[in-house]
């Protein structure tokens, strides 16, 4: 036995006949590698009985297997372990079948034998089905498809999407982008140093006691102007202190800055 079965019909037939000639007692050219495991070997042996597998003599099969294995071992060919495991199991099965029935043994040897037979039947069924499948009218071997089909084509037509708003917005943005840039500084309300000097000088005249600088700011809400007024009033306070018009006092860092008219 050699190699995988090829699905050339002739070769398959030749292969089959070689298999069926099987490993008879006179066959010395035994190639154990040709078998796909013990079940495969068992099936090939079973087929040499030339009966329907349902009529198979399991005892005869066991005998065939054990003889075969012995021959192989006599030739000092190496056997894979699973063949030996199967041989041991079959030897057990054989003795169990031959011995008087012991109802306590479960599963019974008859059941084991039946199981083995069923497995062989199933493998055989699939092997035959496979061969029949391969023998069908297969595309590229028995039936042929059209050699040069025109082929169907799917032509992709692209529809471009763009809506009106996008179009005019784009134009607006081009214009905005390409218009010569002119930078105008926004007018801010500020209190100049002069204004602050005037305002603080006027107000300090009326203040007798220490007064926080925030009291000198214009009371209106605009925070921008308020900030400007604070900065200018602070500088004005320093200026007035320099001129000797006011006293300044701050208890600690970030504490309110206090102003008072300098005592004269």
């Amino acid at each position, binding site marked *: 036995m050699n190699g995988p079965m090829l699905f050339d019909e002739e070769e398959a037939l030749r292969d089959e006949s070689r298999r069926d000639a099987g490993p008879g007692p006179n066959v010395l050219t035994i190639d154990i590698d040709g078998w796909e495991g013990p079940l495969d070997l068992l099936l090939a042996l079973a087929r040499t009985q030339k009966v329907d597998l349902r009529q198979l003599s399991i005892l005869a099969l066991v005998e065939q297997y054990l003889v075969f294995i012995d021959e192989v071992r006599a030739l000092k060919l190496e056997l894979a372990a699973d063949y030996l495991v199967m041989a041991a199991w079959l030897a057990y099965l054989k003795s169990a079948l031959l011995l008087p029935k012991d109802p306590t043994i479960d599963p019974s040897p008859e059941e084991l034998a039946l199981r083995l037979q069923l497995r062989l039947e199933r*493998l055989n069924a699939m092997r035959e089905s*496979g061969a029949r499948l391969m023998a069908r009218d297969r595309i590229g071997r028995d039936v042929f498809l059209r050699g040069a089909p025109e082929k169907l084509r799917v032509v992709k037509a692209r529809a471009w999407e763009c809506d009106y708003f996008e179009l005019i917005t784009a134009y607006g943005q081009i214009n905005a982008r390409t218009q010569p840039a002119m930078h105008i500084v926004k007018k801010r309300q500020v209190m100049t140093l002069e204004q602050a000097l005037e305002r603080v000088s006027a107000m300090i005249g009326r203040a007798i006691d220490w007064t926080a600088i925030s009291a000198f700011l214009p009371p209106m809400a605009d925070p921008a102007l308020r900030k400007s007024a604070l900065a200018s009033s602070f500088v004005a306070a320093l200026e007035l202190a320099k001129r000797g018009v006011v006293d300044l006092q701050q208890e600690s860092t970030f504490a309110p800055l206090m102003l008072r008219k300098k005592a004269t």
Partner: protein
Amino acid sequence: MIETDPDMRAVEATLFASDQPMTVEQIRGYVGDSVDVSAALTQLAAHYQGRGIEIVQRGKAWHFQTAPDLAHLLRREREESRKLSRAAVETLAIIAYHEPVSRAEIEAIRGVQISKGTLDVLMEAGWVRPAGRREVPGRPLIYATTPGFLTHFGLNSRKDLPGIADLKAAGLLDPIDSAMGDMLFTGEESDSELEINENNA
């Protein structure tokens, strides 16, 4: 006259031009919704009966092919189609007749482990595909055949698998345990056969 029926002409031309088997829906995508594609295909198939080429249905898909009895004229001697190993053929048969089936189930039937390449070869050929997982411990992958399998082997459906009805009737597609139950139940006959054989032995 058949030749001038515009629907049939359209279906004929479409299927003929295609390099793939086509389903009714796919054909309709080309010939338009107004055409009764199924009817046209049936008529065409009848029309080509006995000719050198034929229209066949494989699963849901249809295609043109040469008549099988002309294989001897067209077979290219040198370019033998892919040769499958025995393991691959058996594995394919087991998947086809038992699908969906797990690797362990395939191995149980064959009595040997499947080598890594075997399933790959079948999948590469486009005949077998993984078809989900079996909801048992370990969630093994299960395998089934493809539409391409039906096409390649000229099967209209899995029911056309050679001998599948007989195998089913004989219980040869059932797992051994359930088969055992049946046989022990109907019992006697096979037992007695076995006994006879034993006597022969």
